[in-house]
């Protein structure tokens, strides 16, 4: 019966649940799905992490390569994040160049890295004007069930904290780079931003961590990124239904709690990886 | 995928029964090739070329040599690049995407077969390690298609490689330690490739309970799966691959590899003899014309 109702009028089906302050998957409105983290499982990458937020699964692999710094910024390295939604993760995506959702998410991550200075790009410089590191952060979705951004940010931060760069210098004799793959050192990750995405239903109901179905039904989306110390880092709201200041404050409050939870989870998993 | 013809049930039975009795529609036995013609040096603006006619299948191969940069992982070797053009001339089915896909598939397989140290001494193609090497661009043009493309292509490639003349180059260093590449002044002063080890491909089609070589399109339509093998003059197998939508039982695979080795090994001696004969005729030989 319920299944038939759901097929016939999905939105009404959801409304009935939301009226009772819960969601079809059993969560309350401001509850995240169970989040699990697996760090450093890809040995071919210099740093890696796999995140599951409910069904949504993101794997992030970081590969470091050497390049010449730009003329404008001779003392800085590069960080190149890319999000891919391969046809594997949902029947919605086709093979070929990244579509609009993947491009938007890549840009969101790139802006976040740039503006919040997760890593000082000066740290990636080997020799000024001559040699620097490029961190290719490739994020790939393996199962797409909504809330791509939150999962991507968790995966990226965990993978960055896991990254071990080989030691590199420029030889004084040959003027060529010399790399020692055995001697490695970690990256200095200065900040720990965490994203929390919300959906607005019918102008008033606010839910967190939407599934794919909820994202499609909602009238507006908002992503709030906060850092440690309850500082607000970024707010992303691409149009849609407008939002009252009070609701926005509600989002920020929920996001700061989430930030603490995720940072704690990341550090816990990282330390268990190091000790084992 | 590959160009196909429609064969009626009655035709199929006729072909199958014939093959069972070792007598094919055109009178051949199961391990016989069709009449083959090989001509080298057919395209004047390439560095090496050959045309092979096998029954009604016609393949033209042109090789261009260029100086390129060695691949970072193998700095002391040159390499080969393959491009197969399935022109819609050969069969209307090559039109559009179908031909393109088949072309990539064929070029990938050719790359696997020919671009390795077992086939050609890739180190000889290196000019200065890490900086310059010869790249051989092998362009294959399918002019007419009547089955057994792989075999015809491999023979044409071997003949074209035999025919290829790579200009001699010298490396001179200037005062500042920079390197310069100089081409030999004498156009006849060139390097030839040793093609002795270059393999030939034998395609074996399983038809009924037997297998045949050099299948025509009709015969291919009766077969569920084929085995592609590249075999050197010593009879060693350098590459194998099962193609087609069916499966084969292990025993027939073993029978087919045995036959493929035998047939493939036997191809090389007459081919080399023919190529050397044609070479010795030099410019005196009578060209029979492009479509002669």
């Amino acid at each position, binding site marked *: 019966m319920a299944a038939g109702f759901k097929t016939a009028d999905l939105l009404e089906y959801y409304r009935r649940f939301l009226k009772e302050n819960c969601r079809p998957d059993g969560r309350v409105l401001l509850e995240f799905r169970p989040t699990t983290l697996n760090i450093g499982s890809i040995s071919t990458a210099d740093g890696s992490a796999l995140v599951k937020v409910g*069904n949504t699964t993101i794997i992030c692999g970081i590969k470091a390569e050497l390049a010449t710094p730009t003329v404008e910024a001779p003392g800085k390295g*590069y960080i190149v994040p890319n999000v891919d939604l391969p046809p*594997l993760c949902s029947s919605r995506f086709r093979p070929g160049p990244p579509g609009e959702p993947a491009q938007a998410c890549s840009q969101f991550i790139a802006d976040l890295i740039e503006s919040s200075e997760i890593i000082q790009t000066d740290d990636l410089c080997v020799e000024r004007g001559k040699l620097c590191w490029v961190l290719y952060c490739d994020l790939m979705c393996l199962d797409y069930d909504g809330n791509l951004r939150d999962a991507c940010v968790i995966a990226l931060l965990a993978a960055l904290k896991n990254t071990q760069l080989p030691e590199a210098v420029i030889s004084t004799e040959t003027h060529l780079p*010399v790399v020692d*793959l055995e001697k490695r050192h970690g990256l200095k990750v200065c900040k720990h931003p965490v994203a929390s995405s919300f959906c607005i239903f019918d102008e008033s109901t606010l839910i967190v961590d939407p599934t794919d179905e909820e994202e499609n039904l909602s009238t507006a989306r908002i992503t709030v990124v906060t850092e440690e110390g309850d500082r607000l880092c970024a707010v992303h709201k691409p149009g849609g239904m407008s939002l009252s200041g009070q609701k926005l404050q509600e989002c920020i409050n929920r996001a700061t709690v989430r930030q603490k939870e995720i940072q704690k989870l990341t550090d816990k998993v990282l330390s268990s990886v190091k000790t084992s | 995928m590959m160009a196909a013809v429609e064969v009626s049930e009655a035709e199929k039975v006729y072909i199958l029964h014939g093959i069972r009795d070792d007598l094919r529609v055109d009178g051949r036995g199961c391990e016989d090739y069709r009449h083959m013609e090989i001509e080298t040096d057919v395209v004047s603006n390439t560095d090496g070329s050959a045309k092979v006619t096998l029954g009604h299948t016609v393949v033209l191969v042109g090789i261009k040599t260029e100086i390129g940069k060695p691949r*970072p992982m193998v700095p002391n070797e040159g390499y080969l690049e393959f491009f197969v053009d399935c022109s819609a001339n050969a069969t209307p089915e090559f039109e559009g995407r179908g031909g393109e896909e088949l072309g990539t598939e064929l070029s990938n397989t050719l790359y696997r077969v020919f671009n390795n140290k077992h086939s050609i001494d890739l180190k000889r193609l290196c000019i200065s390690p890490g900086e310059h090497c010869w790249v051989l661009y092998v362009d294959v043009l399918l002019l007419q298609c009547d089955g057994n493309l792989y075999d015809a292509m491999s023979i044409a490639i071997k003949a074209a490689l035999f025919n290829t003349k790579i200009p001699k180059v010298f490396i001179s260093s200037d005062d500042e330690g920079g390197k310069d590449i100089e081409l030999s002044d004498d156009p006849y002063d060139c390097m030839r490739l040793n093609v002795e080890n270059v393999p030939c491909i034998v395609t074996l089609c399983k038809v009924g309970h037997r297998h045949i070589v050099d299948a025509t399109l009709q015969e291919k339509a009766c077969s569920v799966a084929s085995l592609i093998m590249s075999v050197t003059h010593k009879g060693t197998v350098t590459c194998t*691959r*099962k193609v087609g939508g069916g499966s084969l*039982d292990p025993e027939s695979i073993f029978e087919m590899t045995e036959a493929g*080795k035998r047939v493939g090994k036997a191809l090389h001696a007459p081919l080399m003899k023919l190529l050397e004969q044609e070479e010795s005729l030099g410019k005196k030989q009578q060209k029979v014309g492009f479509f002669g």
Partner: protein
Amino acid sequence: MPTDTKRVRGPDVSQSPSLFVCQPADGVSPQGPRADGRRRDQVDVRPVFVRCGLVSQAKGSAYIEAGNTKLMCCVYGPRETERKDETDMKCGRLTTDMRFAPFSCPERGSWIQGSQEKDFSTMLQESLQPAVCLHKYPRSQIEVNMMVLENSGSVLAHAITCASLALADAGIEMYDLVLGCSLRQNGASYVADPTSAEENDRGPDQSRNQGSLTVAFLPSLNQISGLQSDGEMSEDTLTAGVRTCIEGCYKLYPLVQQVLSRCVSRAACAPPPR
């Protein structure tokens, strides 16, 4: 080189640090035990970890892990065929798309599908097709999407096993499972299920009997659905190699059966999905 405007771009040129390593890494020793303790000249395959039905969005999915090799496969369909130009509509179409994640290999790969990936996709398709009852799915296509998360050797072989499990998990009618096994021949000795270090090992003896072989096998029908070899091998070595690979497939069979039956019984007990 076409510029990619749809991705975040890095510098025009960047090089892998492994090109600048001062001393070359030690080669794999051709004698003695293998680096991971397995035995040579034995059908000593890596233990595999297999799971079905992990991806919520796919019709069927499977994950396989053998040593460090990690692969994920999703099956979508049957759905209406995209290509209307195919003349034969009585049969369904099986499409395969195999990709390497950019971080899956020692050298970073590109996002754009290379010729090696296309080649692997074709071989995967040819190995799977004989096992799928495509005549039951007229006018439709079944899509197999394979992602290599980490390449530590024998990718194609494990991809074949993984894809056939995902097809079975999707409830696609099949004649049999398809299992894959690889082998690396090095002179007189061989290693089964090679790691990537063993695959790339050129060995001291450059001339004779060096090659790789991958076999796809239908265990209950005793049929070979895929065969692919490289290198230079005598015909006897090749034949022996095929036999060894078949043996390797049989070693895998009980585990794969077990995983599949557990997956099916779980699906039967659980309430129907949403």
